[in-house]
């Protein structure tokens, strides 16, 4: 199982129900294949940076998905076939997530190490602004 993000643009003239219908279909494909749609976000209408199929704007939808490659292939095939979907993009996220986790762990380790070196083990929230980590 891998983590993916699927983003697609729906025809701006499509009704809200149509967008919901597409979302339902895609979610169905994912769950039927044994995957999981973790998040479905409608990002609303946005101006496109360039003209796609004669449209200057489109409504964006973002899926956060946990699935196998075969499911993704099927989803992409469906998206290609749907007339209302004018563009889609699938991005694999797990490499990125792994990288972020590594950086975070590294920072925590360093912060702990620095605190100990200064004998501030009791005071975890070090007063020095240099070691102030962004809260996550």
């Amino acid at each position, binding site marked *: 199982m891998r983590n993916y993000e699927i*983003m697609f*643009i729906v025809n701006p003239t499509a009704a809200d129900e149509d967008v919901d219908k597409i979302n339902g279909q895609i979610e169905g494909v994912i769950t039927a294949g044994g995957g999981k749609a973790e998040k479905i976000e409608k990002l609303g209408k*946005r101006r*496109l*940076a*360039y003209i*796609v199929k004669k449209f200057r704007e*489109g409504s964006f939808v*973002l899926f956060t998905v946990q699935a196998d490659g075969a499911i993704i292939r099927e989803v992409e095939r469906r998206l290609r076939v749907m007339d209302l979907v004018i*563009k*889609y*993009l699938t*991005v694999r996220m797990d490499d*990125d997530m792994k*990288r*972020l986790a590594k*950086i*975070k762990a590294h920072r925590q380790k360093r912060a702990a190490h620095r605190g100990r070196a200064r004998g501030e083990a009791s005071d975890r929230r070090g007063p020095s602004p240099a070691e102030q980590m*962004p809260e996550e």
Partner: protein
Amino acid sequence: MAMQKQYYRRKKVCKFCVERIDSINYKDVKLLSQFVPERSKIMPRRISGVCTPHQRLLSDAIKKARNIALLPFASE
């Protein structure tokens, strides 16, 4: 060494290292658009001062954003 420059040039620093921005996401148009000038080309490192690892992530993110029409490929 040629003629010595009289004025002091500020050393450029990588925005992502300084502000500790770890994830360069393709959805973050506001962040990415700081690195695409008017012609919508990707800003070179020698101008923006971004370090090599971050520039690599940045250019990947910009290319993804272009693909889904969040950023233009070219604009005249």
